[in-house]
């Protein structure tokens, strides 16, 4: 068990870039999506299907993992059509008219509504400083009492 809370889940993506290069990179998995973050901001997202994970034994400098394929022109790269068409977004409809996408958005909307308010960094800092101040004040008091 991790005393600092559950670790973030990550998976490797084999990412094909538009300039003809490719990269094995670890991305976070959140709510069934592989996400690329800059600081805490999600800038890109791909759907993560279990069926589309390829075992990869690793190479020097590239660790072994289950790997999914990805590129910048779609949220699913499935060259063998392994995933059923009904489980993937309909490619003939626009993003705002696509039921698969709107279902995802609905899910995220309900999740935001039900999410408990987490403590901000400022709250944690306040508590930490409060405890530290009390401890320091106690040590001053104890020393004064002992003379």
């Amino acid at each position, binding site marked *: 068990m*991790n*005393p*600092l809370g559950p*670790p973030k889940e990550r998976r490797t993506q084999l990412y*094909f*870039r538009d300039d*003809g*290069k*490719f*990269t094995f990179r670890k991305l976070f998995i*959140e709510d069934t*999506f592989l*996400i*690329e973050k800059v600081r805490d901001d*999600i*800038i*890109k*997202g791909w759907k993560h299907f279990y*069926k589309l*994970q*390829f*075992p*990869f*034994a*690793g*190479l*020097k*400098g*590239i660790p072994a993992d*289950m*790997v999914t394929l*990805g590129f*910048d*022109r*779609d*949220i699913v*790269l499935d*060259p*063998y059509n*392994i995933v059923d068409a009904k489980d993937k977004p309909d*490619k003939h409809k626009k*993003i705002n008219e*696509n039921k698969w*996408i709107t279902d995802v*958005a609905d899910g*995220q*909307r309900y999740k*935001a*509504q039900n999410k408990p*308010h987490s403590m901000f960094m400022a709250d944690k*800092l*306040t508590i930490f*400083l409060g405890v*530290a*101040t009390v401890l*320091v*004040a106690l040590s*001053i008091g104890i*020393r*004064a009492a002992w003379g």
Partner: protein
Amino acid sequence: MDKKQIKEKLLKNKKQWAYLIGGIVCVIFGFFIASIWGTQRENMGLALMAIALWAIGAFMAYRGFKQIGDTDVVIVGTKKPDTPVNSLNIYAKKDKTTGTIYSEKIVFEMVEEPLGQPQQCTNNGRWYYVHLWNIETEALEAFALPDSQFFDPREFANVIKMPAHNKLFERQISTFQKVAPWIMVAAFGISILGLVMTTPVG
């Protein structure tokens, strides 16, 4: 899991514990240095050393704690190639009885007659041909990405984030909550000052 994989995994576990124990030792040693400084109060270098040890110790302990919770997946099957490789091959297989297609493996291999253009792997800077296993012909073919643009991952990020909707449900912070950390910083500073002022010198 072969011996090498087991050895790597054990080594990683040892590393986590080494970080954790090393961090705790640093913190304790920091207290020891701080106590020496407390009796002399002349050498500020000792105080700085104690602070540095606490900071390093806290970082190491945090890293150790964090890694202990992580789970590893050790892939059993194809081994890392010992021979030179020139291609990255993506394989799938088809169950002939049910017709179901499975993702089989991604592997770096040596291919005698590679197809297509080599692509650079940015992880190691080397160039590889990328092939896709054709299930029907049972042969490798050059891998090419589809040209059509469908759902941009950047646009999809907005669907995942729902920024406008989330803004409606953001936590409202009162003025007191905004200034509370600063009040505590001031209180902590005053208490430290009090501690220093009430500590007898020498």
